[in-house]
Every structure is written in C-alpha cells, then in structure tokens.
C-alpha cells in the first residue's frame, strides 16, 4: 500500500496556489540532462497481500532460532522476552515519536531514558550512563576514543579475549584516526598477561568479561596495573544478563564500561538493531559521547526531564564534538528498560542463575563425549569446547542434523589456528531435552562422520 493521499484535484489546487504550471517546474533546478524521464527499473508498487507474500517467502528460507535446539551466542544471545515488552514498544507514542528535542511534549521518552540510564549505571556498577549507543562494538570504539581524550595518549591495548569483530572495529577506527592499537593474540584460556603490556604510552586497556571464549576475568588487578601507569581500564561485556550473576566491572575499578544490551528486551534480528550500553565515572562525564537525559523542573516547579550537556555533541560543537553520533538506539533502549523493569533484580538474578545452570549442564554433557574437552574452568552461560575434528565442518553437520551448535572460532578468526574450537552458549530458553539432543548429535557426528 502507498501512503500518497493527494488526488488530481488536490495537486491542481496546490499548484495553483504555488503559481507553478506543473510539478516539473518545481524540479527545474535539476540539470536537464540529469532528470530521469521515467520511473526507475524497480517493479511497480505492490499491494499489501503481495508484499506479505514475498517477504514471508523470504523469511521462510531461514531457520528461525526458536525452531531448533539453539546454542549460539558469540555476541548476541537468544533469551525469552516477555510478551508485554513488544506490545509496549509498539505503542504509537513510543514507536513513532522523534528525538525528544521539545521536552514539554516528550516526557514519556525522557523519563524512560532517565530510568534506563539509572538501570545501566546500577547494572554496571558505575556512576553515570548515557542514553545508549548503536551497539556494543561501536560503543567499544567510542570508549577507546574517550580514553584517548582523557589521558591525552593515543595507544589502546586490546585483550585477546575481546570479541574479534569488536577488535576489528577498534582497529579500523584506530587506523583511520592514526591511533595505535595493540591486539593481543586470541586467548582461549584467558591466560594472557595483559598487565605486562601496559606502558606510559597506553591510554587504555580493553578487556571483555565474560570474554569471547566465555572465560570470567578478574578485572581488579588489571585496573590497578593500568592506573599505576596513568592508563584507564575499559571493561566490555557482550552478554548483559551476565551482570545478574557476575561481579560488575564498576566494583572491579573499571573507568569506562561498555557492552551490548541486546540480550535484554531485544530480538536477534540477524545482527541489528541492537543497543550499546556506555557507563563511566561522574568526573569523566563531559568526555562521554552520546545523548544524556537529566532531571530539572519546569516553570511550575514540576519535576521534568530534558536532554542535557548537549555541548559535547555534534549539533553544537561540530568538528570539536566528542563524537559524530546523532541518534541513540531509542526503541531498543526502551525495550531493554521495560524488560529489566519486568525482571527486577530478583527476576534478573533468577534468569541469570537459569542461564548458568543450563550452561553448566551442557558443558558436562559435551565434556563427557570422547575427544571433546571444555576449556573453561569458570564461565557464565558461554564456554569453549575443543573438538577432534574441524569445528566448522562439525557445526555444518550439526545444522544438517537440526542443531545450531555454536560458533566455530575460525569463522571470526580464520588465521588464528583455532580451527578446532567452538564457542557454545546455553540460555534459559534451552531445555534439558535440547541439551541432550545436542550431546547426542555431536557424539554421532564425531563417530559416524558427515550427515548426508
């Protein structure tokens, strides 16, 4: 269906008032040789039934995660989102409103952002959080730039446990901005001596926990080592639910905390839209990128909320802005906030415990298969297994058997020599039967070779 309400009479009346003979007169500034004479070679507009038919057919060519036993994480996680969340975010006033630049008629959005910021700060153990970034990977890139501004140094050290695509994003930004990025080798055991890599030129060290391989990292000594050299600790997480069970980066003295919030409130959506979380200490707030909602009063003295500290941003500072970012991830941040409100602390701890229990159970089952070993001593809902056969082949074989078994590390790091590693996640949506099915399929695959 098209949303073009004018009819011929409307158009004629409008042209008359304008004083133009025809619509082409209003396009007269387009150089004549560059005007398109006819509509482009795109099919003509389709009716709603046909659009549905086409897109449904397209969607039907995919294997939805919920239709099979599903154990893939590696930066995006499948969780149960309560039915209420999706209904609330589809309310017109949330879905179709704009950035709250006119706060008198946007208190809905602004109050939600204020609540979201408070939730993120509490979750990460930090003093202040912004109103969200695009996603965890770009938040990580921005955190590094912020650390450079705060320390006036330009070298970042990236842990070997950082999600490879997050490292790629940071490396891309660093190369373009002529900053130095030191990427430590991928570290499946979480055994690297990152403190030894920090020197007087380091602006920040970037450490993920739970890391890409599922290891839990003790950030406190790393923070101490960084601070001793005048550097900052940027702590990263890709699984927000982990903060319901694992010590917060703020407790462990991180200076900037960034992460992916998709796990809470947001569907997988084949990679986006997601929601970047960004938190720091109050003294650093003027160097923090992104939007910020703050509390104030209106002319009647009533408590109100408004976007504030805007002079950090591009629309005022232009080339001197902390970032070029303009949007936040509004609706995804709303979904995160609603879900977290429905969970509350009690619910979050409970679902985190269920995640951990599922992963512990699965690790036990997989570790019992001859030839398969679990690399992690401590983990939350994700761990890494080593297999006797090429991991990518195994994953494809499992898929043919109707199991999504995890991420072959080589897919994100083809030259790391880690072709026998799979990163496996188990969340609260997996059942004991699912986990049993995975273990059986993996055993069969290893015994019998490829599924035909």
């Amino acid at each position, binding site marked *: 269906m098209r949303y073009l309400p004018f009819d011929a009479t409307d158009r004629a009346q409008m042209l008359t008032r304008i004083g133009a003979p025809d619509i082409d007169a209003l396009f007269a500034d387009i150089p004549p040789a560059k005007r398109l004479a006819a509509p482009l070679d795109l099919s003509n507009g389709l009716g709603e039934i046909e659009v549905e038919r086409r897109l449904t057919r*397209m969607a039907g060519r995919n294997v939805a995660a919920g239709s099979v036993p599903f154990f893939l994480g590696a930066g995006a996680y499948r969780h149960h989102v309560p039915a209420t969340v999706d209904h609330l975010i589809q309310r017109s006033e949330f879905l179709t409103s704009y950035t709250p630049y006119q706060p008198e008629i946007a208190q809905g959005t602004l109050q939600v952002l204020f609540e979201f910021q408070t939730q993120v700060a509490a979750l990460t153990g930090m003093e202040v959080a912004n109103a969200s970034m695009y996603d965890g990977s770009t938040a990580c890139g921005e955190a590094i730039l912020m650390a450079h501004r705060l320390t006036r140094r330009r070298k970042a050290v990236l842990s070997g446990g950082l999600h490879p695509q997050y490292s790629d994003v940071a490396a891309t930004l660093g190369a373009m901005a002529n900053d130095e990025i030191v990427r430590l080798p991928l570290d499946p055991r979480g055994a690297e001596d990152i403190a030894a890599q920090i020197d007087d030129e380091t602006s920040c060290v970037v450490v993920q926990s739970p890391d890409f391989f599922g290891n839990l990292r003790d950030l406190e000594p790393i923070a101490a080592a960084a601070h001793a050299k005048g550097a900052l600790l940027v702590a990263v997480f890709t699984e927000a639910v982990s903060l319901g069970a694992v010590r917060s980066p703020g407790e462990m003295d991180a200076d900037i905390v960034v992460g992916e919030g998709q796990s809470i409130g947001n569907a997988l959506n084949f990679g986006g839209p997601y929601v970047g979380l960004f938190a720091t200490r109050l003294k650093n707030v003027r160097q923090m990128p992104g939007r910020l909602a703050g509390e104030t009063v209106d002319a009647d003295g009533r408590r109100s909320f408004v976007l504030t500290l805007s002079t950090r941003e591009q629309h005022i500072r232009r080339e001197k802005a902390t970032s*070029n970012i303009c949007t936040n991830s509004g609706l995804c941040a709303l979904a995160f906030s609603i879900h977290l409100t429905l969970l*509350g602390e009690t619910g979050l701890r409970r679902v985190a415990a269920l995640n951990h229990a599922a992963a512990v159970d699965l690790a036990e089952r997989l570790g019992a298969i001859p030839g398969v070993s679990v690399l992690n001593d401590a983990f939350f809902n994700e761990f890494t297994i080593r297999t006797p056969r090429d991991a990518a082949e195994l994953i494809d074989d499992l898929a043919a058997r109707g199991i999504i078994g995890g991420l072959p590390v080589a897919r994100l790091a083809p030259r790391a020599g880690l072709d026998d590693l799979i990163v496996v996640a188990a969340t609260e949506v997996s059942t004991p039967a699912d986990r049993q099915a995975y273990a059986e399929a993996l055993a069969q695959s290893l015994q019998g070779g490829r599924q035909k």
Partner: protein
Amino acid sequence: MNNQGRPTRPNAGDAPRRGTFTGNRALDIEEALIFETGRLDATGVDFEAPTPFASKLGAHARDGAIGLPGLTEPEAVRHYVRLSRNNYSIDAGLYPLGSCTMKHNPRLNEKMARLPGFADLHPLQPIATVQGALELIDSLAHALLTLTGMSAVAMSPKAGAHGELCGMMTIKAALAARDEDKTRTVVLVPDSAHGTNPATAALIGFSVRAVPAEADGVVSAEAVRAALAPDVAAIMLTNPNTCGLFERSIVEIADAVHAAGAYFYCDGANFNAVMGKTRPGDLGVDAMHINLHKTFSTPHGGGGPGAGPVVLSERLAPFAPAPSIVRNGPSLSLAEHSEGTQAFGRMSAFHGQVGMFVRALSYILSHGGDGLRQAAEDAVLAANYVRASLVDLMSAPFGDRPCMHEALFDDRWLKDTGLTTLDFAKAMIDEGYHPMTVYFPLVVHGAMLIEPTESESKASLDLFIMTLRDLAMSALAGERERFVAAPVAAPRRRLDETRAARQPTLRWAKPAPA
C-alpha cells in the same frame, strides 16, 4: 562551532497550578519513576529458581544488591502506558521537522519485521540456514543501487552519522591506495552543513575548510574551485541542501572536485526530495549515505534505531568495508573479513540493521519505482504549498522562490514583535503541533525549517497552514501572552535547561534520609 544561543530558563510560572488532589488532569496522569514505585523483590516474570547445581562462577559471583526495582506486569503496563501518553508522535499528528522526513510509519513494516524467520535469526548461524536473510539484504541493496545509480553499497552502518563515517573512511582508504592520505587532509564543508558532517571529518583526522554559499543559498562552482587545492581530500555536500534548495551547480562542482583529485561525499538526508527524479550517481557523487529512518519510513522510535547504508561510485567500491554479500550461483554468502582485500575494515559487529532493512524493503516494495517517484513529487509539492501559503507573513531568507521538500523561514519577520523563533515554536505546541525544526541551519538567524512530507493529506496541510497563519498574525499584532508563556497546555511548561546543565542529575539516587 554553533554559537547561536537563546534563553534556556523559563520565567517563574504564572499559570495556575493543577487543582486536583493527585496532580492528575483527567487522562493526563503524573507518573513516578520505577525507582520510586518498584521494589527490589518484585518481578513481572515467572521464572523458577533452578534446581541446585554446582556453580562454576568461582570468585566472580556477584553478591550485594544491584539496585534494580521490579514491577509486576499490570504495574509495568500502567507505568509505560502513562508515560507514553506524554509523547507527541507522527501517529497522533503532523510533524513538520525539517531534515527529518517524518512520514507515516507503515504498520505492515512492523508485521514483516516480526516474522520469526527475520526476527528470530542469529547473525552467525550457518550460512545455509540464513539464505532468506541474505536475500533480504541483497534485495534492499539492489533497490538502493537502482534508485541512486551507484555501483556498490555498504549496508553495515548503523545510522546516518555512522554512514557518513563509513563514506569518509572509504574515501580516506581510496586516498591511501594512491598514497595521498598524508597530503590530502582537508575536507570542504559548507556552513549550512549538519553538525555531523564536520564532526565526522574531524573524527578521522581531517580538518575542515568552509565553503561559502551564494546569496541565493546554494554553493557555486566558483566558490568550490577557489577552495580546492592539492590538500583537499573531499567535499561534503548535502543535496538538496539544509536550506531546502537543490544545489544546481552540483554537476560542475563534482567535475571540479574530481579534476582536483578529490572525492564528492553527499549527505543523503534529503533524498526524499529527489528519489526517482534524478540519481546521485549521475550527478557525480562518489559516496552517499541514505537514512532509512527518513526516506524509507522506518520508525524513529523516540530517537533511534536508524540505519545508514552508503552507496558508492565505481572508483570507491573496492574499498567498501566488510561484510559484503557474495553470490555463488543460486546461493548467497557473506565475505566477512577485510584482510587480503582492499576493504578498509569493519564498521560494527555483524551485518547491519537488518531489522530496519525488512521495514525499508516492505516500504519500497509497496511503493515501487513509480510510487517512490510520486512520493518525491508530492513531498516537494507539499512543502511548496506550505511555503506559498505563509510567505506573505513570514520572511524567507532567499526570497519568494520555490524550495524542494522543505521550506525555510528566518526570524526577521518577528523583529518588531519582541518574540523569538523559540516563542513561536512553543506556541505551536499549545495548538497541538510539534514545532518545526528551529535554529537549524545555522546560516540564517532563528531558522524555522518546515518539512511536511508526502504522507499528509491536503486537509491536514490546510489546517496546519491556517494555524500557522493565525499564530503569525497574532504575533505580528503584538499578542505576546500567547507566546511568551507557551506552552501552557502541554504536560510540562518550559523547562529550566540551565539548571539541568549546571547541576547535572543524570540518574535517580536514593534521597538522603531527612
């Protein structure tokens, strides 16, 4: 920098306080924060604790309160429904925000995006299990290339500003391939540019050189030639520009830029005015981001998410970032690594805002080539209709001449009233309208930029016009009270933004005991 200031603190209220016990006013309900109404032990989900098991968290277990209150489902629904009612939205009324293209957000888009085959799909699933998703990305990419006449498209940028960054990084990579990235370090940017343009350039080490516009609001090829030099990497132009005018010298400008060995970045925020009428590729553009949340109807969601795919010319195509879609006969796959290729790197994890791609493709399929062209024509028609209906009362900085999809006024017509653009905007709120974009672009004083879009009916436009005329005549007649205290009917009166900046309170904190 933007140094156009304005008042940010209201005069103390002289309107009567609410006269009810609750402070509510019928359907307008005051709603506290979740931190004030929720409880740490409340929850709106029904998980059971797991049966006992041996934890593998070791010393990493989190103890101590986190500080997150919960609400039950009915409480949560009430909280968010009440909050939502304090928001203006396109569904409720016309949003004349210039440069934002607030067209109707189709509900079919939402239904399609929620098909499990799209929504419940992990980006790193085996390629064989996601062929439909790759087809979706490829179909949208193809449509964007057809509309723009360009050679390649980077689909991964997460928003318009991210797309600008991607486009400028592609240009920098192309310069590096010619060994000119250390010498070409300047980007030409008109003063009317959106703040993201210079911010983007500065992020990756370019310095910005201003290009002046002519008195008629557009950039001349002479001015560009005068600014071009061997140190120029690129020009960043918006077309139509932020004053709502088509840059009619664009082809000569592109030629001059290319002849000088530089690249042409086009900010595609205003593509709604020209889609189907001309193609950026034909005009000489090398890179252009497209805001799917503007031109292609994906919802604004209170500030995001957006999506900013970047179309690229043939000379820039090789440098596009990972990932890209690769066709192997009947099936599709992803090239996810930039090592060993000319791709400059990666913009973000995974593949882009695929959820927004579904919505944009649904919109494009619904309109088709003919419908999209009609949309551009109607958008331009609507903006000119509004302009022609107001120009006798409100001052237009570049005279009574046609605009494209948005009409620009300045505040000269308010000079003798003692009222400002801000006052005028706030009075619109009481009349039931979200104000137009104000104080942007910076090149005119007290700018008012109106973009009605093509999805408003003529009746809706007529009421909007009559309301603005009534307000304008009221202002000119000296009826100050209607303006200086406005808005008086909204859920809040004017806010003390000075206080918010001087004493930032950026999160809820437990009040100290009395």
